Protein backbone atom coordinates (compact mmCIF):
# COMPACT_ATOMS: atom_id res chain seq x y z
CA UNK A 1 0.00 0.00 0.00
CA UNK A 2 1.20 3.46 -0.81
CA UNK A 3 1.18 5.83 2.12
CA UNK A 4 -0.91 8.89 1.47
CA UNK A 5 1.69 11.40 2.58
CA UNK A 6 2.66 14.88 1.68
CA UNK A 7 -0.51 16.02 0.05
CA UNK A 8 -2.75 18.91 0.93
CA UNK A 9 -6.23 18.27 2.13
CA UNK A 10 -8.93 20.06 0.30
CA UNK A 11 -11.96 19.45 2.44
CA UNK A 12 -14.96 21.01 0.83
CA UNK A 13 -18.54 21.30 1.86
CA UNK A 14 -21.30 19.17 0.43
CA UNK A 15 -22.58 20.62 -2.78
CA UNK A 16 -25.42 22.37 -1.03
CA UNK A 17 -22.78 24.56 0.61
CA UNK A 18 -24.78 24.71 3.79
CA UNK A 19 -23.08 23.20 6.77
CA UNK A 20 -24.88 23.81 10.04
CA UNK A 21 -24.44 20.17 11.08
CA UNK A 22 -20.70 20.24 10.62
CA UNK A 23 -20.07 22.38 13.66
CA UNK A 24 -22.36 20.51 15.95
CA UNK A 25 -20.77 17.15 16.67
CA UNK A 26 -18.70 18.39 19.55
CA UNK A 27 -19.31 16.06 22.45
CA UNK A 28 -16.40 13.81 23.20
CA UNK A 29 -17.30 10.19 23.83
CA UNK A 30 -16.75 8.65 27.18
CA UNK A 31 -16.45 11.85 29.15
CA UNK A 32 -19.11 10.54 31.48
CA UNK A 33 -18.49 6.95 32.48
CA UNK A 34 -21.20 4.85 30.89
CA UNK A 35 -22.57 2.08 33.08
CA UNK A 36 -24.85 -0.68 31.76
CA UNK A 37 -26.26 -1.14 35.26
CA UNK A 38 -27.89 2.30 35.24
CA UNK A 39 -29.11 2.26 31.61
CA UNK A 40 -32.74 1.66 30.76
CA UNK A 41 -33.09 1.36 26.96
CA UNK A 42 -34.90 -1.53 25.29
CA UNK A 43 -33.87 -2.50 21.77
CA UNK A 44 -34.58 -5.37 19.37
CA UNK A 45 -31.89 -7.64 17.96
CA UNK A 46 -31.51 -8.58 14.30
CA UNK A 47 -33.13 -11.87 15.29
CA UNK A 48 -36.18 -10.01 16.55
CA UNK A 49 -35.40 -10.64 20.23
CA UNK A 50 -35.74 -7.94 22.91
CA UNK A 51 -32.41 -6.80 24.37
CA UNK A 52 -31.85 -4.74 27.51
CA UNK A 53 -28.59 -3.44 29.02
CA UNK A 54 -28.82 -5.59 32.14
CA UNK A 55 -28.65 -8.73 29.97
CA UNK A 56 -25.04 -7.81 29.09
CA UNK A 57 -23.83 -7.82 32.67
CA UNK A 58 -21.65 -10.78 33.50
CA UNK A 59 -19.89 -10.84 30.15
CA UNK A 60 -17.50 -8.53 28.32
CA UNK A 61 -19.31 -6.52 25.65
CA UNK A 62 -18.24 -4.48 22.66
CA UNK A 63 -20.70 -1.93 21.34
CA UNK A 64 -20.47 0.51 18.48
CA UNK A 65 -22.83 2.80 16.62
CA UNK A 66 -23.29 2.61 12.87
CA UNK A 67 -25.75 1.81 10.11
CA UNK A 68 -25.92 -0.46 7.13
CA UNK A 69 -26.13 2.36 4.58
CA UNK A 70 -22.67 3.54 5.73
CA UNK A 71 -20.25 2.45 3.00
CA UNK A 72 -16.82 3.25 4.46
CA UNK A 73 -16.40 3.46 8.23
CA UNK A 74 -18.96 0.81 9.25
CA UNK A 75 -17.65 -2.07 7.11
CA UNK A 76 -14.16 -1.13 8.31
CA UNK A 77 -15.24 -1.28 11.96
CA UNK A 78 -16.96 -4.64 11.39
CA UNK A 79 -13.78 -5.99 9.80
CA UNK A 80 -11.61 -4.66 12.63
CA UNK A 81 -13.85 -6.40 15.15
CA UNK A 82 -13.72 -9.63 13.15
CA UNK A 83 -9.91 -9.43 13.30
CA UNK A 84 -9.95 -8.95 17.09
CA UNK A 85 -12.31 -11.89 17.54
CA UNK A 86 -10.01 -14.03 15.47
CA UNK A 87 -6.95 -12.90 17.45
CA UNK A 88 -8.74 -13.63 20.74
CA UNK A 89 -9.49 -17.15 19.53
CA UNK A 90 -11.43 -19.25 22.07
CA UNK A 91 -11.32 -16.33 24.55
CA UNK A 92 -13.74 -14.46 22.28
CA UNK A 93 -16.47 -16.97 23.11
CA UNK A 94 -17.46 -15.03 26.22
CA UNK A 95 -17.75 -11.74 24.33
CA UNK A 96 -20.92 -10.05 23.18
CA UNK A 97 -20.60 -7.72 20.19
CA UNK A 98 -23.36 -5.28 19.29
CA UNK A 99 -23.88 -2.82 16.47
CA UNK A 100 -26.52 -0.26 17.45
CA UNK A 101 -28.08 1.22 14.32
CA UNK A 102 -28.28 5.01 14.22
CA UNK A 103 -30.61 4.65 11.24
CA UNK A 104 -33.60 2.75 12.67
CA UNK A 105 -35.82 4.05 9.90
CA UNK A 106 -34.01 1.93 7.31
CA UNK A 107 -32.31 -0.64 9.56
CA UNK A 108 -35.14 -2.92 10.61
CA UNK A 109 -34.20 -6.23 12.28
CA UNK A 110 -34.59 -7.97 8.88
CA UNK A 111 -32.32 -5.47 7.11
CA UNK A 112 -29.70 -5.82 9.87
CA UNK A 113 -29.85 -9.61 9.67
CA UNK A 114 -29.35 -9.56 5.92
CA UNK A 115 -26.41 -7.15 6.15
CA UNK A 116 -24.68 -8.80 9.11
CA UNK A 117 -24.83 -12.21 7.45
CA UNK A 118 -21.82 -10.97 5.47
CA UNK A 119 -19.68 -10.58 8.60
CA UNK A 120 -18.68 -12.54 11.72
CA UNK A 121 -21.83 -14.32 12.97
CA UNK A 122 -21.05 -13.28 16.56
CA UNK A 123 -21.85 -9.65 15.75
CA UNK A 124 -25.39 -8.78 16.73
CA UNK A 125 -27.39 -5.85 15.35
CA UNK A 126 -29.69 -3.74 17.52
CA UNK A 127 -32.43 -1.39 16.44
CA UNK A 128 -35.73 -0.05 17.70
CA UNK A 129 -38.12 2.85 17.59
CA UNK A 130 -36.26 6.11 16.88
CA UNK A 131 -36.82 7.44 20.41
CA UNK A 132 -35.51 4.22 21.97
CA UNK A 133 -32.39 4.41 19.79
CA UNK A 134 -31.96 8.03 20.85
CA UNK A 135 -32.27 7.01 24.49
CA UNK A 136 -29.71 4.24 24.05
CA UNK A 137 -27.26 6.60 22.36
CA UNK A 138 -27.71 9.05 25.21
CA UNK A 139 -27.10 6.31 27.79
CA UNK A 140 -23.88 5.36 25.99
CA UNK A 141 -22.83 9.03 25.58
CA UNK A 142 -22.83 8.47 21.84
CA UNK A 143 -23.90 11.05 19.29
CA UNK A 144 -25.44 10.77 15.86
CA UNK A 145 -26.87 13.24 13.45
CA UNK A 146 -28.97 12.72 10.36
CA UNK A 147 -27.55 14.71 7.45
CA UNK A 148 -29.89 15.34 4.50
CA UNK A 149 -28.51 15.20 0.99
CA UNK A 150 -29.50 17.28 -2.01
CA UNK A 151 -31.31 14.39 -3.68
CA UNK A 152 -33.65 13.86 -0.73
CA UNK A 153 -31.64 10.95 0.63
CA UNK A 154 -29.64 11.20 3.85
CA UNK A 155 -26.60 9.91 5.65
CA UNK A 156 -25.84 9.76 9.37
CA UNK A 157 -22.78 11.10 11.21
CA UNK A 158 -22.11 9.05 14.32
CA UNK A 159 -19.73 8.18 17.13
CA UNK A 160 -17.10 5.94 15.59
CA UNK A 161 -15.26 4.20 18.42
CA UNK A 162 -15.93 0.73 19.79
CA UNK A 163 -16.85 0.87 23.49
CA UNK A 164 -15.61 -1.97 25.65
CA UNK A 165 -17.60 -2.90 28.77
CA UNK A 166 -16.36 -5.26 31.46
CA UNK A 167 -18.49 -7.99 33.03
CA UNK A 168 -19.20 -5.46 35.81
CA UNK A 169 -21.18 -3.41 33.29
CA UNK A 170 -18.84 -0.45 33.45
CA UNK A 171 -17.12 1.17 30.49
CA UNK A 172 -13.55 -0.09 30.42
CA UNK A 173 -12.17 1.65 27.33
CA UNK A 174 -12.92 2.91 23.87
CA UNK A 175 -11.10 1.61 20.81
CA UNK A 176 -10.87 4.50 18.38
CA UNK A 177 -11.12 3.93 14.67
CA UNK A 178 -7.58 4.97 13.95
CA UNK A 179 -5.98 3.45 17.05
CA UNK A 180 -2.94 1.29 16.52
CA UNK A 181 -4.43 -2.21 16.03
CA UNK A 182 -1.97 -3.67 18.53
CA UNK A 183 -3.77 -1.89 21.40
CA UNK A 184 -7.22 -3.22 20.61
CA UNK A 185 -6.98 -6.80 21.86
CA UNK A 186 -5.16 -5.84 25.10
CA UNK A 187 -7.97 -3.34 25.80
CA UNK A 188 -10.53 -6.12 25.40
CA UNK A 189 -8.50 -8.49 27.59
CA UNK A 190 -8.25 -5.83 30.30
CA UNK A 191 -12.04 -5.47 30.31
CA UNK A 192 -12.43 -9.25 30.57
CA UNK A 193 -10.40 -9.29 33.78
CA UNK A 194 -12.87 -7.05 35.60
CA UNK A 195 -14.84 -8.64 38.38
CA UNK A 196 -18.63 -8.71 38.13
Amino acid at each position, binding site marked *: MVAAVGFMLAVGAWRSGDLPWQQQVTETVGTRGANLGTMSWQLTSHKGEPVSPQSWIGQTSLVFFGFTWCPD*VCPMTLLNISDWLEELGPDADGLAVHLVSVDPERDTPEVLADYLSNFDPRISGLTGAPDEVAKAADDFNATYRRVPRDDGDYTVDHTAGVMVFGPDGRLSSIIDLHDDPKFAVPKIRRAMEREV
Partner: protein
Amino acid sequence: MMNSTAAAFVLAAILPATAFAECVEVTQGNVTVSAAWSRATIGTERPAVFYVTVRNDGSEERLMGIETPVADVPMLHETVVENGAARMSYVEQIVIAPIDAVSLEPGGYHGMLMDLQTELVEGTTFPVTLLFEKSGPVTIDTAVLPLRAREAACEEAL
Protein backbone atom coordinates in the same frame (compact mmCIF):
# COMPACT_ATOMS: atom_id res chain seq x y z
CA MET B 1 3.97 -20.01 -24.71
CA MET B 2 3.04 -23.40 -23.26
CA ASN B 3 6.05 -23.30 -21.01
CA SER B 4 5.33 -19.88 -19.59
CA THR B 5 1.71 -20.84 -18.96
CA ALA B 6 2.85 -23.92 -17.06
CA ALA B 7 5.32 -21.79 -15.12
CA ALA B 8 2.56 -19.35 -14.23
CA PHE B 9 0.49 -22.20 -12.81
CA VAL B 10 3.37 -23.34 -10.63
CA LEU B 11 3.89 -19.78 -9.39
CA ALA B 12 0.19 -19.38 -8.67
CA ALA B 13 0.28 -22.52 -6.58
CA ILE B 14 3.16 -21.45 -4.36
CA LEU B 15 2.45 -17.74 -3.91
CA PRO B 16 -0.24 -16.34 -1.63
CA ALA B 17 -3.42 -15.42 -3.45
CA THR B 18 -2.81 -11.69 -3.25
CA ALA B 19 0.64 -11.85 -4.76
CA PHE B 20 0.05 -13.29 -8.19
CA ALA B 21 -2.63 -10.99 -9.50
CA GLU B 22 -1.13 -7.77 -10.66
CA CYS B 23 -3.45 -4.79 -10.46
CA VAL B 24 -4.98 -3.32 -13.55
CA GLU B 25 -2.99 -0.16 -14.12
CA VAL B 26 -3.67 2.73 -16.48
CA THR B 27 -1.09 5.41 -17.24
CA GLN B 28 -1.92 8.68 -18.92
CA GLY B 29 0.15 11.84 -18.87
CA ASN B 30 1.96 11.83 -15.55
CA VAL B 31 -0.58 9.80 -13.62
CA THR B 32 -0.85 6.06 -13.11
CA VAL B 33 -4.09 4.75 -11.68
CA SER B 34 -4.21 1.26 -10.16
CA ALA B 35 -5.76 -1.01 -7.53
CA ALA B 36 -9.31 0.16 -8.19
CA TRP B 37 -11.88 -1.74 -6.14
CA SER B 38 -15.28 -1.49 -4.59
CA ARG B 39 -17.39 -3.51 -2.21
CA ALA B 40 -20.30 -5.59 -3.41
CA THR B 41 -23.64 -3.99 -2.59
CA ILE B 42 -26.90 -5.43 -1.35
CA GLY B 43 -29.26 -4.15 -4.03
CA THR B 44 -29.08 -0.60 -5.33
CA GLU B 45 -30.46 1.41 -2.43
CA ARG B 46 -27.22 1.76 -0.50
CA PRO B 47 -24.38 3.93 -1.76
CA ALA B 48 -21.25 2.12 -2.94
CA VAL B 49 -17.63 3.11 -2.38
CA PHE B 50 -14.71 3.37 -4.75
CA TYR B 51 -11.08 3.00 -3.71
CA VAL B 52 -8.03 3.49 -5.91
CA THR B 53 -4.35 4.43 -5.87
CA VAL B 54 -3.05 7.33 -7.95
CA ARG B 55 0.64 7.82 -8.60
CA ASN B 56 1.86 11.13 -9.95
CA ASP B 57 5.22 11.13 -11.73
CA GLY B 58 5.08 14.80 -12.74
CA SER B 59 4.29 18.19 -11.27
CA GLU B 60 1.39 18.78 -8.89
CA GLU B 61 -1.79 17.12 -10.12
CA ARG B 62 -5.39 17.31 -8.93
CA LEU B 63 -8.16 14.76 -9.00
CA MET B 64 -11.22 16.90 -9.68
CA GLY B 65 -13.96 14.27 -9.64
CA ILE B 66 -15.12 10.85 -10.79
CA GLU B 67 -17.70 9.53 -13.21
CA THR B 68 -19.19 6.09 -13.64
CA PRO B 69 -22.16 4.64 -15.49
CA VAL B 70 -23.18 2.62 -12.40
CA ALA B 71 -24.12 5.66 -10.29
CA ASP B 72 -25.95 8.89 -11.02
CA VAL B 73 -24.20 10.81 -8.25
CA PRO B 74 -20.54 9.85 -7.91
CA MET B 75 -18.57 12.13 -5.61
CA LEU B 76 -15.20 12.43 -3.92
CA HIS B 77 -15.52 12.11 -0.15
CA GLU B 78 -13.34 12.04 2.89
CA THR B 79 -14.17 10.29 6.14
CA VAL B 80 -13.23 12.54 9.03
CA VAL B 81 -13.22 11.51 12.68
CA GLU B 82 -13.58 14.48 14.97
CA ASN B 83 -14.19 14.26 18.73
CA GLY B 84 -14.87 10.56 18.29
CA ALA B 85 -17.59 11.12 15.70
CA ALA B 86 -17.25 10.03 12.08
CA ARG B 87 -18.65 11.98 9.20
CA MET B 88 -18.11 12.03 5.48
CA SER B 89 -17.43 15.32 3.74
CA TYR B 90 -17.63 16.13 0.08
CA VAL B 91 -14.14 16.89 -1.24
CA GLU B 92 -13.89 19.26 -4.16
CA GLN B 93 -10.50 17.98 -5.29
CA ILE B 94 -7.63 15.82 -4.09
CA VAL B 95 -4.16 17.25 -4.60
CA ILE B 96 -1.38 14.82 -5.47
CA ALA B 97 2.03 16.35 -4.84
CA PRO B 98 4.80 16.03 -7.44
CA ILE B 99 6.35 12.53 -7.50
CA ASP B 100 3.94 11.23 -4.92
CA ALA B 101 0.97 8.91 -4.61
CA VAL B 102 -2.40 9.09 -2.91
CA SER B 103 -4.60 6.17 -2.01
CA LEU B 104 -8.33 6.37 -1.66
CA GLU B 105 -8.78 3.73 1.03
CA PRO B 106 -11.11 2.74 3.89
CA GLY B 107 -11.35 5.39 6.60
CA GLY B 108 -10.04 8.22 4.45
CA TYR B 109 -10.63 9.50 0.95
CA HIS B 110 -13.09 7.48 -1.07
CA GLY B 111 -15.30 7.75 -4.07
CA MET B 112 -18.92 7.71 -2.97
CA LEU B 113 -21.25 6.23 -5.58
CA MET B 114 -24.75 7.44 -4.81
CA ASP B 115 -27.98 6.79 -6.67
CA LEU B 116 -26.66 3.46 -7.80
CA GLN B 117 -28.11 2.28 -11.09
CA THR B 118 -27.03 -1.31 -10.79
CA GLU B 119 -26.16 -3.69 -7.96
CA LEU B 120 -22.40 -4.23 -7.66
CA VAL B 121 -21.91 -7.99 -7.86
CA GLU B 122 -18.82 -9.63 -6.39
CA GLY B 123 -16.44 -10.86 -9.08
CA THR B 124 -17.54 -8.36 -11.71
CA THR B 125 -15.91 -5.08 -12.77
CA PHE B 126 -17.24 -1.68 -13.75
CA PRO B 127 -15.53 1.38 -15.24
CA VAL B 128 -14.75 4.51 -13.25
CA THR B 129 -13.35 7.62 -14.92
CA LEU B 130 -11.07 9.81 -12.82
CA LEU B 131 -11.00 13.44 -13.93
CA PHE B 132 -7.53 14.93 -13.56
CA GLU B 133 -6.77 18.60 -13.94
CA LYS B 134 -3.71 18.14 -16.16
CA SER B 135 -3.75 14.54 -17.35
CA GLY B 136 -7.43 14.54 -18.32
CA PRO B 137 -9.94 11.72 -17.86
CA VAL B 138 -8.54 8.26 -17.04
CA THR B 139 -10.86 5.25 -17.05
CA ILE B 140 -10.05 2.15 -15.03
CA ASP B 141 -11.79 -1.20 -14.56
CA THR B 142 -12.85 -1.46 -10.94
CA ALA B 143 -13.03 -4.87 -9.27
CA VAL B 144 -16.06 -5.63 -7.12
CA LEU B 145 -14.82 -7.45 -4.02
CA PRO B 146 -16.84 -9.03 -1.20
CA LEU B 147 -18.62 -6.73 1.25
CA ARG B 148 -16.00 -7.68 3.84
CA ALA B 149 -13.02 -6.66 1.68
CA ARG B 150 -10.49 -4.35 3.27
CA GLU B 151 -8.09 -3.71 0.40
CA ALA B 152 -7.50 -4.41 -3.27
CA ALA B 153 -7.08 -8.09 -4.09
CA CYS B 154 -4.03 -7.47 -6.21
CA GLU B 155 -0.47 -6.28 -5.94
CA GLU B 156 0.16 -2.71 -7.00
CA ALA B 157 2.97 -2.39 -9.47
CA LEU B 158 4.42 0.75 -7.95
